């Protein structure tokens, strides 16, 4: 029993990271209809930026977040402006390819700036173990779960109550109609990229605090695809829940079946979901079978 509880808690922690990364994917997909293959690289880049900031000034976790998030948003805006905006009106296929190219570029740039060695990054959090009932946690692990909850709340509020959020949903539902109603689709795309980078920064900092900072962190972007598909591609809250589920599934697969199954359990889930429920748990059901 103890073992099961510990496994589930560990699964929730890794799931929180997947969830946050997948939310970044879902936001861009919702607004622009494109899977951003550079999301993992954004997570890595912003984590490195936070590392440099933490190296320059001694900050607590929340102040580090407060400094990093605006920078991340600026990075997101810049990337959107340079790489994505000019492609507006091109087929989704071409834009996805651009994000693949962007991903490779960001990877190279990150290593050229910060070097290839992995780094220890505490992100202003202590390493004292906190025990909740029978289960021990590092603070960074609890923060990861907490931040995922906060992000879900913010996303819900944003999409439901703010003007921009509603406009974003309008764009997602029907881009042309939204345009005719006076919504600036370009602006919505830019907002989506910058908010997605902000989410990436939170995910990146907490991931690095839990699992070290290294130039292979971009890979977590790919690892988060199962969460995204399970959640349903265009649902932010679905992505978060999908992340938690995938995290727990992976950890249980490893804990009870072993054989390195953790690393591929998620991908097996992808194939299964696409067979039985391609729109995921929470996605819009406009998936077309051909």
């Amino acid at each position, binding site marked *: 029993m103890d073992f099961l509880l510990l496994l589930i808690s560990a699964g929730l922690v890794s799931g929180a990271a997947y969830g946050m990364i997948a939310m970044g994917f879902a936001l861009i997909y919702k607004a622009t209809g494109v899977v951003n293959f550079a999301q993992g690289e954004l997570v890595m880049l912003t984590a490195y930026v936070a590392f440099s900031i933490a190296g320059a000034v001694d900050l607590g976790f929340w102040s580090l977040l407060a400094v990093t998030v605006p920078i991340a948003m600026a990075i997101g805006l810049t990337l959107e402006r340079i790489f994505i905006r*000019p492609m507006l009106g*091109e087929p989704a296929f071409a834009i996805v390819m651009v994000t693949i190219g962007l991903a490779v570029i960001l990877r*190279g740039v990150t290593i050229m700036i910060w070097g290839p060695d992995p780094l220890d990054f505490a992100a202003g959090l202590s390493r004292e173990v906190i025990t909740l009932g029978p289960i021990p946690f590092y603070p960074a692990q609890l923060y990861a779960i907490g931040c995922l909850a906060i992000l879900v709340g913010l996303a819900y509020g944003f999409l439901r109550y703010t003007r921009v959020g509603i406009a974003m949903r309008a764009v997602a539902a029907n881009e042309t109609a939204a345009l005719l109603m006076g919504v600036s689709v370009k602006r919505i795309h830019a907002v989506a990229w910058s908010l997605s980078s902000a989410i990436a920064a939170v995910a990146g900092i907490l991931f690095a605090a839990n699992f070290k900072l290294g130039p292979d962190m971009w890979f977590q972007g790919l690892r988060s695809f*199962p969460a995204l598909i399970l959640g349903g591609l265009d649902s932010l809250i679905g992505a978060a829940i999908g992340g938690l589920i995938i995290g727990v599934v992976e950890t249980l697969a490893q804990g009870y079946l072993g054989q390195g199954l953790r690393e591929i359990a998620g*991908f097996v889930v992808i194939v299964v979901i*696409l067979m039985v429920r391609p729109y995921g748990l929470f996605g819009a059901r406009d998936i077309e079978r051909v």
Partner: protein
Amino acid sequence: MRTGHFKESYGELVALTDSSVTRAWVGLLVVALLLLPLVAGNYGLSLATAAMITVVGAVGLNLLTGMTGLISVGQSGFLAIGAYTNALLLADYKWPLLASLPASGIVAGVLSLLVGVPSLRLKGLYLAITTLAFAFIVNHVILYAEGLTHGPNGVFLPNASLLGIDVSRDRPLYFLVLAVTILVVLAVLNIKRTRIGRAFLAIRDHDIAARVMGVDLVRYKLLAFVISSFLVGIAGALLSLQIRFVNVDVFGLILSIEALAVIILGGLGSTAGAILGAVFLSMLPELIRIAFSTFGSTQSVTYTTYVYEIRGIAYGVVIVVFLRFKPDGLIGLWRDVRRYWTNWPLAY
């Protein structure tokens, strides 16, 4: 008097080429390739062989991505399947190369159904994600199915021979790869002339219209994916013949990205473009090296420290810049230049 370029029968529309100039140039190119071993050293030959293997893979991917408009990010998985099939059949089961080479393609093609069937029923970018997942699963299976694949130790290929000629040497291998490349290119060009090829193009350009015209979308998408995986599997087999050792590390994901860069650079959908792109990008590392060595020593220190990163960035930039400014790639650039001079001085 003919005042333009007219097609007067359906046969001419689907002919490979109706221009004797093109025929002459292609003939010249083939002759030049046949004579290359006389002038190039072993390193040059080995580079050329690697470039042609890339051509086979790129032409295969192009059939899927360029012609049918489906993205695959997991071609490295099929490359691994092809290479491992060839290596294992030669090393453990003592098959002759003549049988193991096509078998590599067939195994890759058959296994592609595993990914293709669930994801190609759906509209959209699902194939990109499932192929990615597939590449990971292939890697995992290779490592864990030790009884079949030798797991992490990899497989050394014995000296393979074809019709009594030892193809582990540079020259015979070059000729073998050249022959396969020509066959593959001809095959793909011919597919394009048939109903199948036209169905692929129709799916890419407008799937609803294609369906109305009687193209069974699932069947043709699946067919494109299987053919493409078959060709990539063949490329993998050739790669294993060249390196003579296969191991999961040989088939990193970066290969899939490189392959996409190749066909975008060359010109999506054009076979000639895929060839051009493959040759160009295979030579790119050498070109970057030369570029850096001409800029004096300080830059070449940056270069040697970050060569891999710089190369990665170069691939990324190629993808982004070409998609943005020249979506029809190098081959489009060439067409523009040609049109300009044909119509000179009245070019527009």
